[in-house]
């Protein structure tokens, strides 16, 4: 079959639309906030050889590549010849897929008559999988919950009731955990329906030639983008708070003609606690970073991974050996793109991001519904500020590198007896710069009941701030504290009295370029909007601004602020 460029374009777009349809179905049928609100997921379509052809538009890089690798493991365990229509495969093995037992990968073969013509898979984060509540506290993966080996979720259309019974008995949120598994099966079926329709419509017997063409083009485009870079080796290192001690992530990026080698030798060794990263996940975020840096518009699939070679020493924090504890692996994995961008900065001037909040903040809240013994458990994502770009400020409260979304206060309060008292932009949290880092946010929660309640805050960057680029200043580190208990420990379960007010303040992003290069008028606009305080304007930017309104007035308009040009010139020496 010969695919002309126009047909290829049409079919390729159709496949993407099918994958997006799959993702929409997943979110609309899901039960947990993690999937239905925060999109901690990936969806993709695969050819008959298990190669990923396309993925849905949003979601998380941490799930995409591991899902692609996972598909191959699933098919090795259940060879296509043994599969029947209505079969759905599943596993949450951290080393085979996405690096923690909370992430279920679900794969469905697409039958056209008796023949398998492709697969749909998705990977998403389950509300609970038993064991310890998600934290970094475990020493071994066995403490982190139920591990489901590669098995069938549905067998010829029938739910695997024995498996579901075991899962229900092991988790704190049986309805949500099992409800999401149904959603994962449903969305694959929706994808399959549309794929079959597409094949009928275009008279295709196989999508493999299409896959080959797309993958080959992606690979070629990626290689071309790499060839445009000068050969060389570039190193960088970043630090995470870690759990008991800080964790170093060291990276060397080697550009060699049309291949890129990303090596993490020199990073901290495997931790004794649950912040270890499996190789799949390391690969996911490293290859994501390369694609975002050099060829964001090239379709992401098997071909885009091929020129990117990722390695990390076995037994290191980025290639842990079983039975390492891995539950909080994202808190380390999300640092990888920032580390790689730091290394590539000299080669790609003006094209990358300054350091940002990096890990998405995830908190798991537990307690009982007031007046009952019925437990509640709710997972909430929050995002800090992105790093500034060479030509634009960093985005406020927008996740990077993960693509997860936050949870509306109204949804939080409907699903749990919690009250979110505020959720606002954190003034002065964006690193100063010619382009300012994105702002983090300030949030505060309390509990409506009269018993004890707890949170496990899977967060980072409370000690090591996001670094600026090219003279830009660091963003503000994150904050985690309670009114009655002071500063709290991240990555562990913390218990509260009924009246506690718990603050989670995700960090801001770093600035890009020297703050003195920012025009005083832009600093003024930031002060008017409350992104930057009058004090910080003078301290960080050498711009003196006066508020000319009265102290009592509630409405403070742009005309109530003026730049003191004389004082500003004196400070700036202009």
């Amino acid at each position, binding site marked *: 079959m010969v695919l002309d460029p*126009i047909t290829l374009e*049409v079919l390729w*777009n*159709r496949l993407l*639309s099918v994958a*997006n349809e799959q993702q929409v*179905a997943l*979110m*609309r*049928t899901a*039960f947990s906030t993690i999937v*239905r*609100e925060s999109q901690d997921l990936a969806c993709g379509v695969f050819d008959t050889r298990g190669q990923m052809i396309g993925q849905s*538009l*949003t979601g998380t890089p941490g799930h995409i590549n591991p899902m692609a690798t996972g598909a191959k493991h699933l098919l090795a365990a259940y060879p296509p010849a043994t599969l029947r229509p209505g079969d759905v495969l599943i596993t949450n093995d951290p080393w085979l897929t996405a690096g923690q037992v909370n992430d279920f990968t679900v794969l469905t073969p697409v039958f056209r008559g008796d023949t398998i013509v492709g697969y749909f898979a998705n990977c998403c984060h389950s509300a609970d999988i038993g064991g310890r509540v998600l934290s970094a506290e475990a020493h071994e993966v066995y403490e982190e919950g139920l591990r489901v080996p590669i098995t069938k979720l549905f067998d010829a259309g029938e739910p695997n009731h024995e498996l579901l019974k075991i899962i229900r008995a092991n988790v704190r949120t049986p*309805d*949500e955990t099992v*409800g999401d*598994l*149904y959603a994962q099966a*449903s*969305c694959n079926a*929706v994808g*399959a329906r549309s794929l079959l*329709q597409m094949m009928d*419509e*275009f008279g295709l017997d196989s999508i493999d030639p299409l896959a080959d063409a797309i993958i080959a083009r992606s690979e070629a485009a990626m290689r071309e983008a790499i060839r445009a870079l000068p050969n060389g080796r570039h190193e960088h290192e970043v630090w995470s708070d870690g759990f008991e001690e800080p964790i170093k992530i060291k990276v060397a990026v080697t550009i060699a003609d049309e291949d890129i080698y990303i090596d993490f030798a020199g990073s901290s060794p495997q931790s004794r606690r649950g912040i270890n990263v499996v190789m799949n996940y390391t690969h996911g975020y490293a290859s*994501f970073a390369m694609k975002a*840096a050099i060829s964001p*518009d090239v379709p*992401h699939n098997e071909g885009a991974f091929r020129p990117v070679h990722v390695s990390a020493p076995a037994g290191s924090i980025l290639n842990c050996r079983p039975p390492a504890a891995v539950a909080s692996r994202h808190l380390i994995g999300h640092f990888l793109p920032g580390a790689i961008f730091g290394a590539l900065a000299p080669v790609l001037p003006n*094209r990358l*991001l300054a350091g940002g909040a990096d890990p998405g903040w995830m908190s798991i809240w537990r307690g009982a519904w007031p007046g009952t013994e019925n437990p509640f458990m709710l997972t909430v*994502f929050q*995002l800090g500020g992105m790093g500034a770009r060479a*030509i*634009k400020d960093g*985005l*406020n*409260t*927008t996740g990077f590198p993960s*693509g*997860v*979304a*936050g949870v*509306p*206060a*109204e*949804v939080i309060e409907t699903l749990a007896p919690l*009250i979110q008292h*505020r959720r*606002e*932009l954190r003034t002065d949290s964006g690193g100063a710069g010619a382009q300012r880092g994105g702002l983090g946010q300030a949030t*505060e929660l309390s509990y409506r009941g009269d018993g004890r309640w707890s949170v496990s805050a899977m967060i980072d960057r409370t000690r090591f701030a996001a670094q600026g680029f090219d003279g830009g200043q660091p963003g503000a580190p994150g904050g985690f504290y309670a009114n009655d208990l002071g500063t709290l420990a991240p990555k562990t379960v913390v218990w509260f009295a009924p009246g506690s007010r718990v603050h989670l303040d995700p960090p801001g992003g770093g600035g890009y370029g020297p703050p003195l290069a920012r025009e005083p008028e832009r600093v003024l606009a930031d002060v008017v909007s*409350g*992104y930057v305080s009058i004090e910080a304007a003078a301290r960080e930017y050498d711009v003196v601004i006066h508020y000319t309104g009265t102290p009592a007035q*509630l*409405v*403070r308009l*742009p005309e109530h602020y003026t730049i003191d040009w004389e004082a500003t010139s004196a400070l700036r020496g202009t």
Partner: protein
Amino acid sequence: MQSRSYRVGVDIGGTFTDLIIVEEGSGAFTVGKVLTTPDDPSQAIEAVLSEALARAGIAPAEIAQLVHGTTLVTNAMIERKGARTALLATAGFRDAVEIGRENRYDLYDLLLENPRPLVPRYLRFDVPERTLADGTVLTALDEQYVERLAGELAAAGVEAVAVAFLHSFTNPAHEQAARAAVGRAAPNMRVSISSDVVPEIREFERTSTTIANVYVQARVERYLRELETRLQRMGVGGNLFLMLSSGGIATVDTAVRYPVRLLESGPAAGALAATAYGQAAGHPNLLSFDMGGTTAKICVIDQGRPLIAHEFEVDRMYRFKKGSGLPITLPVIEMIEIGTGGGSIARVDALGLLKVGPDSSGSVPGPVCYGRGGSEPTVTDADLVLGYLDPAYFLGGRMALDVAGARLAISTRIAAPLGISVEAAAWGIHQIANEHMANAARVHALERGKDPHRFPMFAFGGAGPVHAYRIARALGAPALLAPLGAGVISTVGFLSAPLAFDFVRSWRGQLGALDWAHANTLLREMEAEGASLLEASGVTAGAVRYRREADMRYVGQGHQIRVPLPDGELNDAHLPALQAAFEAVYRELYERLGPPVPVEVINWRVVAAGPEPELQLAVRAENATAEAGDAVKGARPAYFPETGGFTSTPIYDRYRLAPGAQFTGPAIIEERESTVIVGPGARCQIDAQWNLGVDLAS
């Protein structure tokens, strides 16, 4: 003599105001088109209406109904020309509308931008008050604070306030009290409260929609009241109605209260017109392509219905990407609208590349060839230079076009900097505009999983038929269809929708544990409200039809699906049927059922509608002939690269082409308000409905 009665549809676009008058019963119709008058859009309506009434010999009092759509709301939002607006939010949540969803709408693009709220941060205020998820009050509303704030806002020149408090969709008391407090302190302040505009969970989207509503309200009200006055002065009888984004129509009072529902009302009418024509011509599946002076609108018509979405975005800031616009939660006909129209300005950019749009010359000053002061070359100027438009027959000859001016502008601004001929420059502008529109059409169709190869294109709007042939070719469409009166035919959409009102009541309960008495009361209330509104609008009681639906989901899910409900009193005996109806819809959407958990109802809905209007247009076929050669009124050179450039091309008089007439391109088919351009070799035929069909399959 039997009394005559007419229905009128009128659409205000960015460049032109279009009109149709249809006689009830006979289907005889009259159309009109004039330049939009942006400073007072109702002026253009009066002008085109008076002219058309006079031309057709109809008295204003014979008008029974006038249905209207306008781009006023969309433009006010995109151009940020609404009222100076403030937001009153629950203390701690004034940033909800800026923090948004916190995710990236494109994983790999590092230069994304987030949508910029209509209210800047310094006009967003934390108000002491708090309602919880179950509707109980944690902190009473500080009304004195609201009064003080409202007084200061009024003094600062703020004209509009959006109030969006958490959980107001469950308990609206605080929002209502805040509205009253603002009214006491600032009686002239416009206020929209979120529990009234869109009583649905998720504060970001609800707040964004509420802000949009009040932001445009003053403009919309001023305009509609002016229009009402004008129509009264003219002696126009009957009622004025507005088309909504959903394709329904509503009274002026409803439109003034919820102006955000008028977003995309003109384009919605276009989609309905395409649907109606498609049905009549035996094409339930169509790609509707509507190109006017300012924008092009593309919409998939699938199995005789346009697609409806529940949420959409206005003003996409970044590469038109989904996620970069302001979210608006309301039912809307799904379409893609891009900034390519006849008035789109062509320029050579800093990289030495030719760019077309998205900025438009609008109706003032308009393209260079309009001779109204425009100096930058536009798509229409290019079309004129290419010979596609007749300078002496634009708008039927009522507006002369300046060819020399258009040539000069293209020559100095495009051809000279690029070092090419004027013709090559004009062809380049034409091609790039086509490419934009073909890409948008492809994306829109594909995002919905539709194959543009299989959808005949239905082309209309003043500029649509000039460009449709090339775009349809680029998309691989099997056929092109251009209706008679293509330049104004979107107005038919206004007259093809029944008068309808949508009602929703949020009241949650599990199937099997429902208080049926309460459910029945809610449904009856909504039906009664619908009946009285429809009767007030002239629909007889017996002609009202009701459609009941419930939004249902498995307990624990976050999204619901819409399930039809039976008529009459509901009770436990209906449970198996309701469960079955839910499962049928769920399976249809999601292929397999969910886990074995109970099902709940979240919202109860009623749509009350008047009768479907009978709309059969009667074409007056004077001198029309199936012998196409007899309809040729001349020839002129027009540009076709296939035949080596300018080629002498026959001009057909559209009004003389009767059903059955056949001819082959290249051809120019002229009617007063638009021109169809057909490339060399393409076979054309007039069908029984007087549509011009172009076969592109061969």
